């Protein structure tokens, strides 16, 4: 039965589909519209078109937060890649049963609630936390260190949260890799490191790109981790949005920030699509 022929069935679910497009797109449209409105004196919405919300984003205070978000998201991606690639490679080279166990070790904690993960880090890093207690007891330090409420703490929290999203696509790419390519490289005189760098890595680029985008996008919009592990100096754009909607009650400005965040995500996706397209050309085989 041809695809065309099956459209009778499609027709019957067509309405569901139309409903869904709205369901998915509606929030986007609403936020976009709101971003051009203004906040009244008591937090109510004034229905007048204005670009002032977008102008406000250019305030150095907000710009600094946007740039910090970008920096932390990029660092999280880089950090995850540097740790994730060797881990993925190492797992992909293991024998069947060991491979399964280590994969589970990577996957299962990612099922763990984000809250729980972050609280665990608080337990470790806070002033009266495990690390300070250990160091004090061991006599390495005299008074507790400030390990929390700074950017490194946010970075650790984010990397911990998103690392599995880096490891899994790279692992998948390495698993798909034709083992005979490795044999062919060795056969032609390449030693192990030459094989890794000239054959294995280029063949896993697609996984690296997918992993990077899967880490970068949620890291950019993160708000719980910077809220819990970061201090006032480590706010990210997600916190700013949350703040505008919840505390400041400036919904139009919050919407403009949200649109700004989504534009950055879209930009990242476009860059990814461009790279992926170029890599794809050399990988379609």
């Amino acid at each position: 039965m041809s695809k065309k022929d099956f459209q009778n069935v499609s027709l019957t679910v067509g309405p569901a589909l139309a409903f869904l497009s709205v369901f998915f797109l509606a929030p986007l449209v609403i936020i976009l519209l709101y971003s051009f409105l203004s906040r009244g004196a008591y937090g109510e919405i004034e229905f007048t078109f204005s670009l002032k919300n977008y102008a406000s984003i250019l305030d150095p205070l907000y710009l600094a937060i946007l740039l910090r978000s970008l920096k932390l998201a990029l660092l999280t991606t880089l950090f995850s890649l540097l740790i994730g690639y060797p881990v993925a490679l190492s797992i992909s080279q293991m024998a069947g049963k060991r491979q399964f166990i280590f994969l589970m070790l990577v996957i299962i904690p990612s099922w763990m609630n984000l809250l729980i993960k972050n609280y665990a880090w608080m337990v470790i890093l806070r002033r009266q936390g495990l690390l300070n207690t250990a160091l004090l007891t061991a006599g390495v330090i005299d008074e507790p260190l400030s390990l929390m409420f700074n950017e490194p703490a946010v970075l650790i929290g984010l990397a911990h949260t998103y690392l599995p999203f880096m490891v899994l696509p790279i692992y998948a790419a390495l698993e798909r890799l034709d083992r005979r390519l490795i044999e062919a490289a060795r056969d032609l005189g390449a030693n192990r490191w030459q094989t890794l760098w000239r054959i294995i890595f280029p063949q896993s680029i697609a996984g690296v790109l997918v992993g990077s985008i899967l880490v970068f996008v949620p890291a950019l919009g993160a708000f719980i981790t910077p809220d819990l592990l970061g201090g006032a100096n480590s706010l990210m754009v997600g916190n700013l949005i949350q703040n505008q909607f919840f505390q400041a009650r400036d919904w139009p400005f919050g919407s403009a920030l949200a649109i700004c965040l989504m534009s950055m995500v879209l930009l990242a996706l476009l860059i990814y699509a461009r790279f992926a397209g170029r890599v794809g050309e050399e990988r379609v085989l």
Partner: protein
Amino acid sequence: MSTSNPPDILTVSGLTKKFGDVVAVRNASESFRKGEFICILGPSGCGKSTFLRLIAGFEKPDAGEIILEGKSVKDVEPERRNVNTVFQNYALFPHLTVFNNVAFGLKMKKTPEDEIRRRAGEALELVSLTKEAYRYPRQLSGGQQQRVALARAIVNRPAILLLDEPLAALDKNLRLAMQDELRKIQREVGITFLHVTHDQTEALVMSDRLAVMNEGVFEQVGPPQEVYNRPVNCFIAEFLGFSNIVEARPLDRASLRIVLNHSLILQVAQKNFPRNREKATYLVRPEKIALHRHRPQHETNVFEGVLTRLRYAGPELECDVQIGETKLLAQAIGRGEPESLLAGERVYVHIDPADIVYLPGDGSS
């Protein structure tokens, strides 16, 4: 081995490889000479690919020795062995151009840039792919990819080229053309080719020497005509083509006669008379059985039979003939008298005594 032969380039002795409880290669010992085209033929799972991988260094033997150009390479890493492999599905590097695929081996050996360009160019010319040098593998046809794989291996001038069913993925006409081209290239470069295949016709047509492998053992090694016409056992006889395998007892050594099925008396050649007094196993190739409408004169081994079934397969005619209790398969070419025969007809069967081949490896106990 006579001194006029080229020197041995590869010798394996007692080579054994197990995977768990399965013995893939069992105590293999054999020598291969410089410039030979050797086909290793066997059913799938017979260990022929493992044998190749042991030579290439992708597998480590459990026992035995591999002597390449006079030196043991048993413990040498694959990248340091002077052999190269053409893989079954080519294993071309998809992210490199044809030129960079071919140049890969030379680059790894830190060959100077201009020598790389010259030698890779020559190799591409050898396989007629000069124009495709800057394409990517996926932009080539199956036959072209196959030739890139060949060039990529040959450009390194290995002592031995290992070919792991390189033609299996090609369709019939292209496969026939590539068989000729491979032989031509092998003669031009003079490298020893060790070519693994499961295709009987391919092995018979291409090889200088044919090694038949079964269950990890080299069952017979020799020129292809000899292996086809004088197989040492049933397995080889049946694996290499259609065959009539019959049991017989010696009747009279003086007249070289044997008895088939207690009824059919056949005369055999001297060399085919059984060594012992008990029953022996014989092979008669279907194409060696001649069918005639009228009794041939002045011939030995002529029997009257009935043509029970005819199968028309293009150029050949396959016939089942019943002679008393014995049923034989005969194969004739579709021309002249055999083509005019009809099923059910009475025919005269003639078998030359030299074509009744004694199989020493079976039933001679």
